[in-house]
């Protein structure tokens, strides 16, 4: 359990950012992960009063505020009608609705959890994040960066006609994924994302015109297995993850070619 000396309901992002420059202060997400640690914080900064808990949708994109809960994202009607409903699919097996009513998009993405289904699926949708000082950066780049003292303000998802599919493997429901995988196709651009390796999600882009042949798919599989490192932990071995990577990848590709998330 963590400890806090003072709780601050931020009145502006500027105030929040200024406070967050101190290493013994922290910005609160859903506090689920924070609670399992033992850190002693001075000030805990809450962004809940800054209107960042909404999902805005216009012609071009979705703008998801960092304080939106996973459940809000999962149940957003507009988002569900895009990308073959892949976002809801990725989120709905995470522990339970109660947890998803607490966990925030900002907290999840900032933490860059290895096991994160959110990170995997949003990387496949080529999402970007808007940082308070650091501007907009692609989520793929953001995921590779080290956590810093900037604030993740919003997640942006362009509305494009890409097809997408999400697949994950768990030993039992409610467990961490042994591996997860999201694939999207926009014209000839295929984005393949593998997460819970157990490391955080990694993305590889492929260019394949038309319908991929078995050779194309085999080549994608080999590239993924060759360049993305897999590891061993209590959930499974690297060897097993390597096998699962191909299975999940092929399932996603097949689903996209058949016209929809599985």
């Amino acid at each position, binding site marked *: 359990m963590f400890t806090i000396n003072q709780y601050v309901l931020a009145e502006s992002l500027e105030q929040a950012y200024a406070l967050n420059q101190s290493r013994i202060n922290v910005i609160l997400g859903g*506090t689920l992960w924070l609670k399992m640690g033992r850190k002693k914080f001075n000030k805990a900064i809450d962004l809940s009063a800054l209107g960042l808990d909404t999902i805005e949708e216009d012609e071009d994109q979705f703008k998801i505020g960092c304080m939106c809960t996973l459940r809000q994202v999962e149940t957003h009607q507009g988002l569900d009608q895009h990308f073959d409903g892949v976002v809801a699919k990725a989120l709905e097996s995470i522990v339970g609705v109660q947890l998803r009513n607490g966990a925030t998009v900002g907290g999840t993405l900032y933490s860059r959890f290895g096991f994160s289904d959110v990170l995997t699926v949003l990387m496949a949708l080529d999402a970007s994040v808007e940082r308070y000082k650091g501007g907009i950066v692609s989520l793929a780049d953001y995921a590779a960066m080290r956590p810093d003292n900037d604030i993740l303000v919003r997640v942006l998802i362009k509305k494009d006609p890409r097809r997408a599919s999400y697949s994950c493997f768990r030993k039992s429901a409610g467990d961490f994924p042994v591996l997860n995988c999201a694939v999207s196709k926009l014209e000839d651009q295929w984005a393949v994302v593998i997460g819970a390796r157990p490391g955080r999600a990694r993305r590889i882009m492929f260019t394949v015109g038309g319908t991929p042949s078995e050779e194309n798919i085999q080549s994608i599989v080999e590239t993924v297995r060759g360049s993305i490192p897999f590891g061993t932990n209590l959930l499974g071995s690297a060897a097993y993850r390597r096998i699962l990577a191909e299975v999940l990848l092929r399932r996603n590709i097949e689903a996209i070619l058949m016209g929809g998330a599985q």
Partner: protein
Amino acid sequence: MIINLWINDKEFMDDVAPDKMLLDYLRSKGFFSVKRGCETSNCGMCTVLLDGKPVLSCSTLTVRANGKHIATLEGLQAEALEIGGFMADEGAEQCGFCNPGFIMNVIAMKRELKDPGEDQIKKYLMGNLCRCSGYMGQLRAIKKYLAAEKEGAK
């Protein structure tokens, strides 16, 4: 920090430590239906409604409930006895320790989902663990409850 919040429609004003979790605050105020079953947000035993949404009170800072409305089973007794009656008719309540968190989430589900099928019910209630019952009796009870609700609404 001084906060005020509503618990079961009754207003409370208190000076609480910034890192006190809502679960401990609620139990300190005598709302013993809210249980702790784990430290890792996995079991669902601590489920309460926060402004109508089911959340884990073990993982919610009390200060973040400032100005908000919380419902525990103590404030939903009529519904608890109704849903609980169906559980009792299956023998599914067993040791009872998971019941409050479970029934809170059933109440949330009933309010959020319209006419859920078996798969949807299971998915919604997935975050509520039970070690006694094997879940089948709980499902029988929920289905009968929802059917009775539907019948009553006609």
